[in-house]
């Protein structure tokens, strides 16, 4: 058997591009397969406020294609719905070169040291699958540093009094204040909260041959006009391609993992469409396969690859693959001020506190709280207006007219208390355009998550009031399935093969050459935006893989 590559990586997103760079720079021959397209600011169409990754009213500005890629969503009442990629219940992650990092806001958080020890600190609530990570913050610290310096993060290294130990400051200074920052800072001071400027994967100064952020008013959800937003597509992927040992196969779907008669992984099957629309499959061989397709599609690929030895999918003899699907609840408070607090200068996130990530009375875990990216006007209309405001007439129009520049937000991602019942499985009765069963999403987050989320909502509201808002409002959180762009947890790493899918380097139990490398590995997903942790894990695990093959 001719082995074409040392490593095949499925998915060119936050983790896949880093793994490709690390492995190819270590001398390995790498094939990187991505179903999405290469997209840039210039060729992404107009700045469509209705079709982007912040507001997907009728589509979005990356993939997957709207038709032919459904999922099944099972509601809390057990009803099944076939959903399209832009619909909320689909829980889409951007399919493009760079994945979500092409369009993210780029909040670049290290998880809190206590985030790695949730079960030890809080115990395991009944019905939840809360657990510790198989290693501590200290293990990940050097890899966070690599991500911050090699992908590029701006921030203030000594700003966060609750953060874990760090050896090195960020490579770029933090973003500037906007008119809301001062109000929120003095409000926090009145409450005794510590605040600082949040870290962002955004160039605040020209760096690595690319410009600085030009402070446009539509950062998150879109490709960057100055290319000063650091995704993996403009940082790590170019480095991988420069080695000449990494090949990128874009707009190509991996049908499933290839295995031999004994069930050993030998590569992948890709699907190729010719000029007439005919689809054929091709087997490509490699020593190692790394799945970096995101928590939903990675689990789906594992479940779709069935062998005599593993009739329910790769690594799934213990019925763990696809379980513990989680993301983040996002309690959000809006505050109306008597003066301008919004000047449209992006990115817009300027002030945060981590005082509520742990040590909260009577709830498990917590969340980082911060102000938000500059809001698109239509997003304010759709999700930011007070409930008692009419949606028609001059009242609505004048609220938009007078309110848009006077509204600030405080929000934060709540550390989810996972449930094994939240899961990705296969819908054998609903097929994608290639005839494969689609992902079915079901389950409801553990109720403790909602208690924490509503606790955090109250804290955010108190902060907004202390900042001098003349009026504040926000929505109580309710139980639901949570995954979305922060999807995680479906191939949890651990030390016990009975209750995890991989070892602590992402190697799938029962296999010596199949790895998972993305947020699927996260045993819990932190009270922060998870992407820097995805990146740090990718650096760590890819270096480990490079040293063992």
């Amino acid at each position, binding site marked *: 058997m001719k082995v074409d590559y040392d490593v095949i990586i499925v998915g060119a997103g936050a983790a896949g591009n880093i793994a490709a760079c690390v492995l190819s720079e270590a001398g390995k021959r790498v094939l990187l397969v991505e179903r999405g*397209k290469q*997209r840039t*600011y*210039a*060729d*992404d*169409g*107009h*700045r*469509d*406020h*209705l*079709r982007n990754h912040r507001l997907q*009213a*009728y*589509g*979005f*500005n*990356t*993939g*997957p*294609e*709207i038709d032919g890629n459904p999922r099944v969503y099972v509601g809390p009442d057990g009803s099944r719905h076939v959903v399209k*990629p*832009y619909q909320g219940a689909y829980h889409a992650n951007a399919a493009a070169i760079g994945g979500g990092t092409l369009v993210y806001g780029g909040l670049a958080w290290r998880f809190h040291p206590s985030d790695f020890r949730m079960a030890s600190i809080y115990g395991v609530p009944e019905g939840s699958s809360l657990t510790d990570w198989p290693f501590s913050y200290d293990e990940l610290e050097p890899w966070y540093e690599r991500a911050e310096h090699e992908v590029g993060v701006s921030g203030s290294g000594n700003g966060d009094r609750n953060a874990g130990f760090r050896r090195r400051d960020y490579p770029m200074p933090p973003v500037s204040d906007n008119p809301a920052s001062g109000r929120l800072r003095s409000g926090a001071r009145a409450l005794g909260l510590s605040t600082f400027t949040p870290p962002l994967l955004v160039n605040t100064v020209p760096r690595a041959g690319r410009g600085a952020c*030009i*402070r*446009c*008013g*539509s950062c998150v959800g879109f490709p960057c*006009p100055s290319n000063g937003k650091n995704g993996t597509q403009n940082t790590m992927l170019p480095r991988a391609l420069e080695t000449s040992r990494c090949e990128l196969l874009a707009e190509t779907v991996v049908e499933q993992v290839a295995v031999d008669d004994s069930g050993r992984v030998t590569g992948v099957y890709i699907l190729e469409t010719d000029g007439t629309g005919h689809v054929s499959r091709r087997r490509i061989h490699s020593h190692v396969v790394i799945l970096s397709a995101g928590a939903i599609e990675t689990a789906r690929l594992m479940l779709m690859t069935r062998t005599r030895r593993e009739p329910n999918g790769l690594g799934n003899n213990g019925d763990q693959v696809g379980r513990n699907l989680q993301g983040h609840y996002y309690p959000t408070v809006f505050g109306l001020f008597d003066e*301008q607090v*919004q*000047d*449209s*200068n*992006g990115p817009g996130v300027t002030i945060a506190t981590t005082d509520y990530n742990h040590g909260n009375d009577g709830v498990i875990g917590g969340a980082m709280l911060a102000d938000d990216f500059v809001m*698109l*006007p*239509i997003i304010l*209309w*759709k999700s930011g207006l007070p409930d008692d405001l*009419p*949606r*028609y*007439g*001059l009242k*609505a*129009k004048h609220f*938009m*007219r007078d*309110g*848009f*520049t006077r509204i600030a937000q405080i929000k934060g991602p709540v550390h989810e208390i996972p449930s094994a019942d939240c899961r990705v499985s296969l819908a054998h009765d609903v097929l994608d355009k290639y005839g494969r069963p689609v992902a079915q999403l079901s389950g409801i987050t553990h109720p403790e998550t909602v208690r924490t989320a509503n606790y955090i909502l109250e804290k955010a509201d108190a902060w907004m009031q202390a900042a001098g808002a003349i009026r504040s409002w926000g929505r109580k959180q309710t139980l639901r399935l949570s995954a979305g762009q922060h999807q995680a947890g479906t191939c949890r790493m651990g030390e016990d093969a009975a209750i995890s899918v991989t070892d602590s380097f992402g190697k799938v139990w029962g296999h010596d050459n199949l790895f998972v490398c993305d947020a699927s590995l996260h045993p819990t997903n932190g009270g922060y935006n998870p992407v820097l942790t995805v990146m740090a894990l990718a650096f760590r695990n890819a270096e480990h893989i490079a040293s063992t093959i």
Partner: protein
Amino acid sequence: MSDEKTRGFRLETFRAVLDRIIPADDYPGATDCGVDRFILALWDAGLVADPQAITEGLLALDRRTEHPFERLMPAEQDDLLSKCDGEAWFRVLCELAAEGFYADPANGANPGAVSWEMIGYRPGLPEGPSGPDKNPRDAVRGRLWA
């Protein structure tokens, strides 16, 4: 744009309702900006959720008045619409109108980014409010003329 005859409701009522959802004042109202065309394009593309409910809502509105809705005084129109507040079809229509009025100009119903000027949103893109005007590779997922 479809032929008027294929609609299950009166376009005059539809447009007059839109102009009370987003009335003109110092700044233009809904139909001044093309919000009616924007919604009908979505409608024709099959992207309006439950169009039947909107049709029935508009027909019910017509049945409540002796005179055509568009000829009523604004105060009378508002009075009738206030009775629809809370009805699903009306809420959906308000949201569709806002989508056109407050989205980027390239979506077709925010000419010259007039609503953004009104509220003080500054897009800050080098090419102007809608950003790049070319899309040489292919269309944005799910895009349509609107």
